[in-house]
């Protein structure tokens, strides 16, 4: 169970997120929706400890993480796929994936078993530089790296953004499979309402850094989308 209580987040002196409260049960998918610049990516960065500071309470399975550093959160089960992927271009595919293993101190530096099943292309190109992959392949690589951290919660920031349409569906299927097969809790920042509706057990909508609406996945209607998401 992931719980946020009165979470506020800051970049320097700028107050970005205001009093965010929600909880998410293990194995559920939560979509975070909202217009550009409302704080969706900041919410994920806050969960990872990548903003300047935060206040409030953040617990994962009753372990308090709000005061902890980013690396500690990663070792405690938070896996992160950032917007723009941020793979290391001159690392090989293998090195990029194995970066994730630093979060899992208990096991050997080996690629997790599920990665070859999900991303056979990556396994066939382990020695290739990450920077030479296409956008979709880099997204697969970023997800594989996050899986290698052995997460309990996977934070995905617009995983289908800028990906060619035929690959988008593969990535969506892969996210759903991770949720089902590994019972992974997933928080998905998404602009793609179709996928959010398809995947979400729950959703929340942010506006100006505040949580303005939340509910179960089947309550995510076109009316809500029109009210909060159209420009």
């Amino acid at each position: 169970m992931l719980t946020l209580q009165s979470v506020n987040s800051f970049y320097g002196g700028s107050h970005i997120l205001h009093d965010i409260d929600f909880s998410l049960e293990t194995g559920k998918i939560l979509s975070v929706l909202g217009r550009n610049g409302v704080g969706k990516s900041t919410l994920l960065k806050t969960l990872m400890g990548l903003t300047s500071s935060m206040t409030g309470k953040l617990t994962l399975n009753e372990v308090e993480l709000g005061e902890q550093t980013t690396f500690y959160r990663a070792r405690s089960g938070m896996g992160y796929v950032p917007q723009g992927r941020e793979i290391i271009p001159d690392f090989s595919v293998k090195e990029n994936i194995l970066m994730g293993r630093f979060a899992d101190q208990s096991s050997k530096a080996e690629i997790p078993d599920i990665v070859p099943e999900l991303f056979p292309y990556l396994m066939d190109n382990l020695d290739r530089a990450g920077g030479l992959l296409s956008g979709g392949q880099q997204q697969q690589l970023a997800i594989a790296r996050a899986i290698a951290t052995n997460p309990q919660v996977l934070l995905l920031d617009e995983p289908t953004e800028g990906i060619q349409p035929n690959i988008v569906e593969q990535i969506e299927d892969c996210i759903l499979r991770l949720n089902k097969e590994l019972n992974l809790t997933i928080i998905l920042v998404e602009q793609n309402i179709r996928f959010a509706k398809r995947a979400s057990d729950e959703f929340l909508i942010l506006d100006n850094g505040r949580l303005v609406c939340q509910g179960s996945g089947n309550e995510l209607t076109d009316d809500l989308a029109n009210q909060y998401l159209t420009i």
Partner: protein
Amino acid sequence: MLDTVFIGLSIGSILLLVALGLSIVYGSMGVINMAHGELVMMGAYTTVIAQTYLGFNLFAAIPLAFIVCAGLGLLIERLVIRRLYNRLFDTLLATWGVAILLQQAIRLEFGLSFFGIHIEGLGPGLQSVTLPEIMTESFTVGEFVIQPYRTFIILVSALLAVLTWFLMYRTRIGQQVRAIMRNPDMAAACGIDVKKVNALTFAYGAGLAGVAGVMMSGFKTVMPDMGSSLVVDGFLVVVVGGVGSLVGSIVASGILGQLNGVVAFFSNDIIARAVVFAAVIAIIIWRPRGLFNYKGR
């Protein structure tokens, strides 16, 4: 002429040892360590002290200087640099302050007013290190005169460059350092303890500076300000080679060392230094990110 090339190689080797530490530290931590030259000086003084008081010869002083300077580096990182991450100019000023502090500490003979420790024979006076006998007598191979100590410097530098390459590219700690150089936030999000790795990186760079100090103590007078100009030379190598690039540091130290040696042979040291600076300016105009850029400056 071969002798000149050989001298240039040995100068380049010292530059390489100095630049390796600077380059890795700046590449991974974004810290311009102005005290790096003083860490070289501390390595040289460690040799003097070890020889005078412990009876160590120069060979035995190498690991000792590495440990002393790495420990000192760890202390500087913990006390000063860790508090100033992401503040480039503040770290520059703070490490300059540390440099002055270290120089003055030595001038004060580890200070009557410093820690109350007095070490005979240090002080403001000049110091020299006695080389082991095996290092003092030149021999010839054909027409080529081999100077054993300069050969030793080249070998030690080559060995440490290979060791550094191995650590950086063949170990998990090296992968962590390279990941931090590229993307510290993602490195942390992958479970890498960035502060701890940075501290170890800084200590390793300081240790290399210490070894450079041992090497220098064998052919230069050991004095408190011997490191001041070295830090500039080290940064010239880093800028020319490309920040964080091991290969860049090796190539740049070779180029600058040879240029210095050859020009000094045909003219004098002052002109050689001017030519080196002119060459550096030309190279950074031609390739602003250095010859082998790993991370932009």
